[in-house]
């Protein structure tokens, strides 16, 4: 479980955080199964989808074709193995549709630079926090070198919560 004091990912069930020594046992008493799960389970438990990535020089037109082909609304721009930006269907709505000449410009001109990312070991609760506070629909999952290893969406989170904790698929 993730220590609320220092963030260390402890083995579930330990009494005290092995890094900062703060007691962890009391946490279980006041929270529900859902709260425990989202605090203890890392983002990788959501099985993040593999992200679609392109380089910054890719034209907006090619980026859009790739999004349509993969039936997704968002892609990551990577340079030298690092996430440098995110380009979404909202950028297309706001900045490409009003001026179609932009279709032939590099996607790096229209991406959001240095998007907020999470790591695979961050808790699901933290991912919910980022989306809720930032108002994002997509959160890139970055590896330790800043490389793109996954993408989670608000829909992935809702699906995880509603299947596990509201049994939405268990009744007619």
């Amino acid at each position: 479980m993730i220590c609320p004091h220092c963030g260390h990912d402890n083995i579930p069930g330990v009494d005290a955080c092995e890094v900062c020594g703060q007691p962890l046992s009391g946490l279980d008493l006041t929270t529900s199964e859902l709260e425990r799960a989202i605090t203890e389970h890392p983002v990788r438990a959501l099985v993040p989808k593999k992200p679609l990535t392109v380089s910054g020089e890719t034209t907006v037109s090619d980026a859009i074709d790739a999004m349509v082909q993969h039936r997704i609304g968002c892609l990551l721009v990577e340079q030298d193995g690092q996430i440098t930006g995110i380009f979404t269907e909202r950028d297309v709505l706001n900045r490409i549709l009003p001026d179609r000449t932009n279709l032939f410009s590099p996607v790096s001109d229209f991406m959001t630079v240095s998007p907020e990312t999470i790591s695979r070991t961050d808790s699901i609760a933290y991912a919910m926090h980022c989306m809720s506070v930032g108002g994002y629909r997509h959160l890139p999952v970055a590896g330790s070198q800043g490389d793109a290893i996954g993408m989670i969406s608000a829909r992935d989170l809702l699906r995880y919560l509603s299947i596990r904790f509201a049994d939405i698929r268990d009744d007619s």
Partner: protein
Amino acid sequence: MPDGPVEFDLRRLLQQTHVSELTLTVVPLLSPDQTLEAAAASMREVSHGSALVCDADQLVGIITERDLLRLLAEGKDFDSPVSESMTSPPQTLSTDDTLLDAVRLMDRGGYRRLPVVEGDACAVGIVDVKTVMNYVVEHVPTTVYNQASHALLTVRHAEGA
């Protein structure tokens, strides 16, 4: 709010909350003969990615930014009427439906947004995945808002090692 810690039950929360209790997202309403260009402009105006299409106070379709992305890639003429490219008829919710109904429909149909119809009006707004997520987050606030990034906080090497 009751005193003391209460076991949080997501299913009960979703079952007991009616669509009428949610803050619906108000989206642009278009007529079927308005153009795709007008649909896009109306979405930009409200910073939202969908618009509903109404014909004589009857909800007949929905068009989303995802549709516009695809239509752009296909080279569709954006001066064509929205009725040619909208999803029709859309899956809807009523204000009496529960949040559990909404989540089930989203799961089964793969919908991100569901228009809400009430009485004689064409539509009163939409429920989208973010509306539902925010509602859930509001009900588990201490857990969600007291989060810090693992990457920022984890001590990677023991001090003095």
